[in-house]
């Protein structure tokens, strides 16, 4: 059926005296559209008479606005490449590109809508029943099904314009829901001195009052005001209260342990830690069941009023109101007040005695609305837009009624699923025929329509009372907190609820397309079929039919599914229960949960210098380090033949001071530092009590009670914690400070390094004055420095530490001084080659979680004569049993290098005797060299072994020879030069 253009513009003119709103241009399905400021995507399209926003998930039926409140799936669209955006709550912005989802190839010609005609081929649970056989065709089925199924398309490349933020808030009282009860709870809690966070998913406060003209009474702050005026009055009061932080357009998606309320607000994800929580989540209308009840134009009554009052859009002219409650009469009156013609009011209840005294009844009768009590709605008319309803009167006569809108005005159901997540079980209340919150968990409170259809005065009174109760409970141990309300109030609530008629049983007149769940296209018939097949439990039915499992998280169908299931099983809704509610309450993007990209990157003080030299970078821990500057071979040879300069600022550094510092270091290490002389430096290897090597580095004694401890680049945080742990609460007079970032450091190495040093310092750097393992302090390049004569790379070298601010200056000064002496910057790769030539192990690369110092070839660090140190007993055990595997050098015959981790085999056999941990080509020695763990019996000098080249059995083999002494300068003369 063709879309019938409405003769009257849907957009209402601006009120007298208000300027014409600014226009905003956007596109929908490739067509230019115009919105006005304040519009959501859906309201703008509604104003432009676009009624079909998407096609449904399974049957590809046309769908239009249903709730206009971000709760249902009927307006999910793709916005600028972001799928599943709810058009009805997303403000439209200039140039936005909006595309419908679930249409192929296009909305107008959606071929998949054929599924709607062949629904018999897609019975409930069809994915468990069909496409199973023949087995070999599954890959084909899968491809087709994957194309047809799913909601929207995610761009795997992501969105560079996503700027996720994360915030933390603390509040004595967190109020969820900004309707009248929530606002008053917030105001009263704040007035009691509590800090309050008020979370509301709407743009403005006031809840349902914003779409209500009827006056409200029961609190002096709003007495006699129309609903809309009361809403803005409450909003002003909240805004004026400095103790209340109002989070607008923010959804509480979950309540977690410790009353952590997770709030999603646009691109910001907020952790709100609540002393007390007031759930004032209200109640929401939900659909009624009849054939084709999903046609565009069939909307919740509140949706029609939202478009009218929040966006000045009148989405139709003539409304049929369908209801099961007095609520429908009030909504009919509201629709009349909003300028709609109400063509009929179909109340499924029989005409009761109070029919004339109902709120709204006067207005409805005065307007001459055709009223039918005891009506059974049978089916909707129209396809892409509803044109009317057919129904059966109480007398059994089938009739039709016209309207371009159908307002579904079932009694709003309490929104309890958020509270259920916190452990508050839903409780069926027979008096009102709804699920309401059961016993509250500590620190939780409820107020307003979440507790049932309370009259205005009680909603307002409850909000105020609960606000005060929560405030008084805040700040105390919540277990002692009280949720008790004054008896008079409880009595009044009980009386009010007793006066409510129970909601009538759900009406399902028959017809194939009574949609229960619009997300997953689950119909009443399918639930009926499921029950016949034995799925009597709602939790099983949920998994079988996917009812309540769609993107709306059951907001439209949670209670309805329980009622319909009960209808077919013969159980009561109370026995049937609700399906479990889980976070998130509203869908939230993975990007939002992931939060901002906060991976830390640390750059040394010389970073820019490396950059200028064209360094290739590598990541080490948080640090960026130059891997090389373009020529690893030249870098290696420069260090051996002239001089090289490497940035070692990333080494971890701990400043350890205090009277017991030496003794403390003795305790933490197998070797001794208390006897280290001031001005000397010594190697350190650190063990745990299992005797495993944790970390290594150097300890320099800078003063009688001051040591500088260096750690490997990646381990500083862990070593700092380890030091701190052994000091915690103890008597030792030691202070440990991580000074890694405070110092910039370089290692100047190579035969020419002494001459370079002489050019930049007045200190005596001669072999006699500053021998190997000296630790000097003095000016270098005019800045205060600590100079350590140590060398990882096996040549004469100086490790120079200066305050980080002088790092770039030191680098420049040394580069200048060494220019004519062949000085060349070298990177981590060259350093790895050079240290391998010396068989210096790297902790974490050549050692692992089973490596002890004795087997790693550094048994000399273990001073067994010390009475105790961490790892002593374990080391003694290893010493007593003798080494089994040893870390040894392996010379590689030929040009092929084994991979790190590759197996070492006994020559001529397939017997594994060890593994390679490092392997490099040495340009100086012109051969491959390696370190590896080898069985002690095979680790004899010169022994030939077979080396696998790849890990596992990949890559063939080569031959190696055990070398137990350093490949280069085994006597260490160059290092000590």
């Amino acid at each position, binding site marked *: 059926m063709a879309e019938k253009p409405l003769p009257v513009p849907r957009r209402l003119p601006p009120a007298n005296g208000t300027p014409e709103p600014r226009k905003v241009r956007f596109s929908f399905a490739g067509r230019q559209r115009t919105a006005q400021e304040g519009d959501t995507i859906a309201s703008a399209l509604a104003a432009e008479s676009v009624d079909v926003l998407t096609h449904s998930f399974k049957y590809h039926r046309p769908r239009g606005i249903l709730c206009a409140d971000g709760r249902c799936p009927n307006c999910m669209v793709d916005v600028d490449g972001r799928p599943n955006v709810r058009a009805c709550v997303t403000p439209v912005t200039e140039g936005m590109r909006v595309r419908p989802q679930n249409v192929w190839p296009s909305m107008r010609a959606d071929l998949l809508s054929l599924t709607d005609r062949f629904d018999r081929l897609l019975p409930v649970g069809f994915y468990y029943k069909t496409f199973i056989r023949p087995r070999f065709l599954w890959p084909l089925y899968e491809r087709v099904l994957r194309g047809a199924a799913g909601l929207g398309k995610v761009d795997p490349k992501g969105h560079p314009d996503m700027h996720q933020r994360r915030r*933390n808030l603390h509040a004595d009282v967190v109020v969820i829901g900004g309707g009248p009860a929530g606002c008053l709870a917030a105001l009263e809690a704040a007035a009691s001195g509590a800090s309050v966070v008020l979370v509301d998913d709407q743009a403005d406060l006031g809840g349902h009052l914003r779409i209500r003209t009827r006056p409200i009474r029961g609190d002096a702050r709003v007495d006699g005001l129309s609903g809309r005026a009361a809403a803005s009055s409450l909003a002003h009061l909240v805004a004026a209260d400095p103790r209340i932080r109002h989070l607008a357009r923010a959804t509480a998606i979950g309540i*977690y*342990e*410790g009353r*952590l309320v997770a709030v999603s607000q646009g691109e910001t994800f907020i*952790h709100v*830690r609540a002393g007390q929580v007031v759930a004032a989540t209200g109640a929401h209308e939900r659909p009624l069941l009849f054939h084709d009840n999903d046609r565009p134009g069939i909307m919740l009554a509140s949706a029609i009023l939202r478009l009218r009052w929040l966006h000045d859009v009148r989405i139709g002219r003539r409304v049929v109101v369908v209801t099961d409650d007095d609520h429908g009469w009030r909504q009919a009156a509201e629709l009349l007040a909003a300028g709609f013609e109400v063509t009929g009011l179909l109340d499924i209840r029989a005409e009761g005695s109070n029919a004339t005294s109902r709120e709204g009844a006067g207005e409805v009768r005065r307007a001459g609305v055709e009223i039918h009590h005891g009506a059974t709605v049978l089916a909707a008319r129209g396809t892409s837009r509803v044109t009317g309803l057919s129904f059966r009167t109480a007398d059994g006569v089938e009739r039709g009624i016209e309207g371009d809108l159908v307002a579904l005005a079932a009694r709003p159901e309490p929104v309890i699923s958020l509270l259920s997540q916190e452990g508050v079980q839903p409780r069926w209340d027979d008096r009102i025929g709804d699920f309401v919150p059961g016993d509250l968990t500590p620190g939780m409170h409820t107020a307003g329509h979440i507790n049932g259809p309370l009259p205005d005065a009680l909603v307002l009174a409850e909000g105020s009372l609960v606000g005060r109760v929560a405030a008084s409970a805040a700040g105390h141990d919540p277990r002692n907190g009280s949720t008790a309300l004054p008896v008079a109030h409880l009595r009044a609530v009980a009386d009010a609820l007793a006066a409510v008629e129970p909601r009538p049983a759900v009406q399902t007149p028959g017809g194939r397309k009574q949609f229960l769940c619009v997300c997953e296209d689950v119909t009443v018939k399918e639930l009926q079929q499921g029950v016949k097949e034995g799925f009597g439990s709602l939790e099983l039915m949920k998994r079988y039919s996917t009812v309540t499992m769609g993107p709306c998280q059951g907001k439209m169908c949670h209670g309805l599914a329980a009622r319909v299931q009960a209808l077919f099983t013969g159980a009561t809704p109370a026995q049937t229960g609700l399906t479990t509610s889980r976070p998130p309450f509203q869908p939230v993007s993975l990007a939002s949960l992931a939060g901002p990209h906060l991976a830390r990157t640390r750059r040394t003080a010389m970073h820019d210098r490396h950059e200028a030299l064209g360094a290739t970078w590598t990541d080490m*821990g948080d640090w960026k380090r130059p891997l090389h500057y373009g020529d690893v071979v030249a870098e290696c040879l420069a260090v051996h033949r002239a001089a090289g300069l490497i940035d070692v600022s990333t080494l971890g550094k701990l400043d350890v001071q205090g009277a017991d510092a030496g003794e403390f270091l003795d305790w933490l290490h197998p070797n001794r530092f208390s006897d280290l002389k001031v001005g000397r430096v010594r190697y350190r290897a650190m063990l*745990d*009590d*299992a005797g*495993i*090597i*944790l*970390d290594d580095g150097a300890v320099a004694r800078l003063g009688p009670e001051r040591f500088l401890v260096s750690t*490997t680049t*990646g*381990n500083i*945080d*862990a*070593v*700092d*914690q*380890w030091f*701190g*742990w*052994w*000091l*915690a*609460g*103890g*008597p*030792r007079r030691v202070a440990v400070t991580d000074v890694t970032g405070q110092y910039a450091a370089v290692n100047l190495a190579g035969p020419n390094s002494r001459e370079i040093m002489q050019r930049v310092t007045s200190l005596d750097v001669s072999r006699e004055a500053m021998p190997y393992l000296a630790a000097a302090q003095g000016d270098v390049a005019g800045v205060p420095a600590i100079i350590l004569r140590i060398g990882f790379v096996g040549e004469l070298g100086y490790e120079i530490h200066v305050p980080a601010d002088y790092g770039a200056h030191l680098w420049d000064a040394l580069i200048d001084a060494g220019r004519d002496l062949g000085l060349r910057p070298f990177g981590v790769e060259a350093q790895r080659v050079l240290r391998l030539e010396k068989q210096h192990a790297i*902790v*974490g690369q050549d*050692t*692992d*979680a089973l*490596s002890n110092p004795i087997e790693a070839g550094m048994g000399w660090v273990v001073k067994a004569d010390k*009475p*105790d140190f961490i790892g*002593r*007993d*374990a080391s003694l*055990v290893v010493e007593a049993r003798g080494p089994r595997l040893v870390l040894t050098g392996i010379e590689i015959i030929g040009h092929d290098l084994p991979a790190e981790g590759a197996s070492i085999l006994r020559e001529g056999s397939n017997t594994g005797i060890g593994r390679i941990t490092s392997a490099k080509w040495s340009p100086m020695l012109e051969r491959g060299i390696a370190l590896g763990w080898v069985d002690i019996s095979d680790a004899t000098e010169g022994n030939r072994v077979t080396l696998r080249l790849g890990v596992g059995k990949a890559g063939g083999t080569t031959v190696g020879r055990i070398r137990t002494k350093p490949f280069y300068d085994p006597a260490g003369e160059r290092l000590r030069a």
Partner: protein
Amino acid sequence: MSFLLGCPLCGPRDVYEFRFGGEIQKRPAPGSAPETWGAYLYARTNIDGIERAWWFHRAGCRRWFQAERDTRDNRVFQTAWLLPAASAAGGRDDSAAAVQPITARPPAAPAGAPGPEGTANG
């Protein structure tokens, strides 16, 4: 887990600011039997109830302290640099550890395993 933990220096903070440091234990005396060392190094009570454990305020003051917590519902009863030796809440007798924490053992080695975070947080 999303409870608050009271750092003795910084006050109540989100548990994600902390590193869990393991049960408070007493380090065996030097020369203890290998079995004693083995139990100390590898056996954990892993109590379903009130636990006394070390915590490190990694994203705050970077100090170690002790907390008494119910592992079933994450209620924290007390935190201190060192818990009082005899706790009303029961648990194992850690009095020696509390008086002389230096002889207690931290939860996990800082290194040895590959990667800087090889030992990371609970």
